[in-house]
């Protein structure tokens, strides 16, 4: 459990960090909370020769509503999300999700940007961001660009963040009207990655008709998955029990889990169905409040 030798830099500006990434090339890695990267280095699954610690760069850590978006700085720690008033008031899905991410030690370090940039379908925030329809802001040598969450995850541990770039902000369309969201994952014990996890977001008009829906799934496909057929059946519907059951059924059919110690394919599909149903209902009840 000892990493290979590496060099360490802690730049104090984004420009400097980007310059260093270019200077060191492919063997350099950004260090955020370190709670995915350092375990991999200790197991010698990853052996970057340079770590660029971005913790000393000011202005990357915030949770705020602005221009119709909920904006979360890439370096915002899980614990800061947990403690944010806006999150408590309007985006309870984060309360559900962060509580299920490991333990306070991990949440004191792990960042939301890192959680996405790690590019692991087992992490919880990817599904949450899919359900909420997030955009990701990426900063490089030539400035900023924005990538929709559906184009962000590209493969196992690969995302739209290119070498020499830094994920800087996550933007989520602000909650409005009757808006509710919820997340749950089945886990074998606290701190475990999901056996299956489901994020749901529901927006309704005053008649209870669904105007917007987002369903994201954790750890039941190679990439974080949007349950599109589930969303389609929900949007425009009256959110009856039958519709919800159908959405749950679609989610369980459309995921492609693989068998591991957490469970076989049947069990995981079964969980997706049950949890999808429960999370839609939870989102609806929150939307009604």
């Amino acid at each position, binding site marked *: *459990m*000892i990493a*290979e*030798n590496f060099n360490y830099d802690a730049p104090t500006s984004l420009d400097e960090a980007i310059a260093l990434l270019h200077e060191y090339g492919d063997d350099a890695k950004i260090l955020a909370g370190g709670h995915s990267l350092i375990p991999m280095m200790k197991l*010698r699954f990853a052996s970057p020769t340079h770590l660029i610690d971005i913790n000393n760069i000011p202005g990357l850590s915030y949770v705020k509503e602005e221009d119709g978006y909920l904006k979360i700085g890439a370096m915002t720690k899980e614990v800061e999300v947990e403690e944010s008033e806006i999150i408590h008031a309007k985006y309870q899905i984060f309360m559900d999700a962060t509580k299920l991410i490991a*333990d306070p030690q991990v949440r004191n370090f792990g960042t939301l940007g890192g959680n996405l940039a790690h590019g692991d379908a087992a992490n919880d925030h990817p599904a949450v961001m899919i359900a909420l329809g997030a955009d990701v802001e990426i900063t490089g040598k030539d400035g900023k660009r924005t990538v929709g969450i559906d184009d962000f995850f590209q493969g196992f541990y690969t995302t739209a963040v290119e070498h020499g770039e830094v994920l800087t902000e996550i933007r989520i369309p602000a909650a409005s009207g009757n808006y509710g969201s919820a997340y749950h994952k*089945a886990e*074998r*014990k*606290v*701190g*475990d*990655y999901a*056996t299956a996890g489901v994020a749901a977001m529901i927006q309704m008009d005053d008649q209870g008709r669904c105007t917007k829906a987002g369903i994201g799934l954790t750890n039941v496909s190679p990439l974080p998955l949007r349950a599109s057929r589930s969303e389609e059946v929900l949007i425009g519907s009256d959110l009856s029990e039958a519709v919800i059951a159908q959405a749950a059924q679609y989610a369980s059919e459309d995921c492609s889990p693989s068998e591991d*110690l*957490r*469970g*076989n*394919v*049947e*069990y995981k*599909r*079964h*969980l997706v169905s*049950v*949890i999808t149903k429960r999370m839609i209902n939870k989102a609806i009840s929150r939307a009604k409040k």
Partner: protein
Amino acid sequence: MIKCKTSKEIGGMGHSKKRKEDARFIQGKGNYVDDVKLPGMLYMDIVRSPYAYAKIKSIDATAALAIPGVVAVVTGKDLEKYGLHWMPTLMSDTQMVLPTDTVMYQAQEVAAVIATSRYLARDGKEAVMVDYEPMKPVMDPFKALDEDAPVLRSDQEGKTDNHIWHWEVGDKEKTANVFDNADVVVKQQMHIPRIHVASIETCGCVASYDKVTNHLTMYMTTQAPHAIRTVIALVAGHVGLTEEKIRVISPDIGGGFGGKVPVYPGYVIAIAVSFLTGAPIKWIEDRSENLQADSFARDYHITAEMAGTKDGKIQATRFKVLADHGYTDASANPSKFPTGLFSIGTGSYDYGAAYMEADAVYTNKPPGGVAYRCSFRVTEAVHAIERMTDMFAKKVGKDPAQLRMENFIKKEDFPWASPTGWSYDSGDYHAGLQKAMDAIDYHGLRKEQIEMRAEGKFLGIGISTFTEVVGAGPSQDFDILGIKMFDSAEIRVHPTGKAIARFGTKSQGQGHETTYAQIIAEELGIPMEHIQIEEGDTDTAPYGLGTYASRSTPTAGAAAAMAARKLRDKAKKIAAHLLEVSEQDLEWEPGKFFVKGAPEKSKTIQEIVFAAYTNHPEGMEGGFEATHYYDPPNLTFPSGAYICVVEVDAETCDIKVRRFVAIDDCGNIINPMIVQGQVHGGLTQGIAPAMYEELIYDDSGNILNGTFMDYLVPTAVESPSWETGHTVTPAPHHPIGAKGVGESPTVGAPPAIVNAIVDAVAHLGIKHLEIPVTPFKLFKELQNVGYFKKTT
């Protein structure tokens, strides 16, 4: 409430004194092996086999040795020159220190890298090139006995199969007779899976050999420092390391649970390298090494049967065990007990016929068979008997609590001779179960269960009423490598009335620094705060066999009381001298002797001790010291009545322990708070195998969950709020009537939990569930009985 004989200031038995040791632990000032740093110390890391069974074709250390700071790479061939490549196990089998030609399990030690820093040792390890020729391993213990199975221990002369030993106890014919004629027989095959103690501190040592004085100082994570010193002398005496030249120091230990009883190859390699180089060698395992290579626990395949009458009288039990020992029998059992104390498996019930047999086999798994928080295989036995009792109750249609009440050994029938040869010393099983049932509102729960089932919700109630057997042990039966299993205490009281006491045991979190002081305080009336307790240094402590199997209080605790009583006898003589009366005229109350009828004429223990150094009677030896080696006349038999309530999510199969009531009877209680703490920890280690933990191997011998990511150690989050209580039935033969408690909860909890889960889904047709019962496993079982649809 417990009645105390001593004042709060004295703090003898029954007082919930805060633990003396905690002041340093909670301030991060403990002193563990990894805190030991010696000048010139070198660091060791170990190259481990990726294969479960392979020939070693070559080991190339060139690249490793080319790394600046890497000092040496040691292989089995190097150790062979000194006859140190094999070592004996505690069960008189043999184990490789480092292999010369074949590896026998994944993660086995293959070579050691010595370097000037921990980091360089690790880099060196990565650079050692080993060429293996993999062979097909034997992973299934049942297949290990097949005719065509490869003979794994071809190193043993004349060995033609993988069978290690056969053991049996009880009356085979009589038992068969009862079974043949019984109204009702229940039978179940069950596996008590391979698990790991997973103590927070891993194993390690600093071996420091001084080439000038020829002395070895060995700082190590051991639960039995004295026994280890003897073992080192037996293994290395021929190269000059004789017992007087060896000092084993076991500093603070971060959890042992039986896993720090064995001698691991790493220790021996470190000693060998220090012996050859004269440099201190530090070896500290990392988490994965600890989990993958150090001794496992359990791994018993049991076919259990119970026979009885149709109205619910248990008449006989029969257990057949297949024990998977890995590639060597490195169990930590007393020599004459290859299955440990498994024969306690007749349980708390009154019947006359039992027969048990066991066979042990070699496989390509790590060795071990440690007594994980359990008095040698008692956990396996209790699981079997408590599961069978429930199955039998179900079969005859009786409430499991009622059936237990009707079959318990009665209070007045102790001492009770068990059909497998034990003499149970004492117990009051009816009182324990009644207390647990009242605490949890058993009958109310049964009603609620019916109501919840009507709503499609699953509630389960599980009982375990177990008998433990601890405190090994009486010297006529108990020894390890021939050394009798008594234990010792030495008390020295200083002129000012303060004391130090030393023991042959070794606390790993049990709180000995507090409880031993309380025992001495009880007997001598010296405030427990004034009594310092020391263990773990073989140069200063009296000889003893260490701490495991709940033996410290039954053996060393008794020795403390006996040594203190010797001192009280002496104190009485001195008091008589000081008060100018005869001994018969004196009476004792904790802390002083006074003259009968004239209580104002008294001498405190402090005054008496001072006199022992300043003014002792003529003809009496000066000073105030005593030593006692306590050889217990019998083991002690703690018991418990545990009731667990679970809720099972009818859709996700999530299992939640709603309540858990544990009523323990460990005889007289020394420190109620420590007992409670022990029970809390033990119960958590009881839900571990019941619901979470199991070491899993694939057919090629790969461990599938060799890290804490997949080896699921439960935490506070998984633990319910434990509810504890006790009944007190003192051990009649023990000086302070205590029985030992550290392991009762680990032993007693798993069947209570599993019985509860089975009970929750019994109406769906489930009769038995194998541990660990996970939601995934339960889902599959519920598919098998048709509750969930099978889709593939």
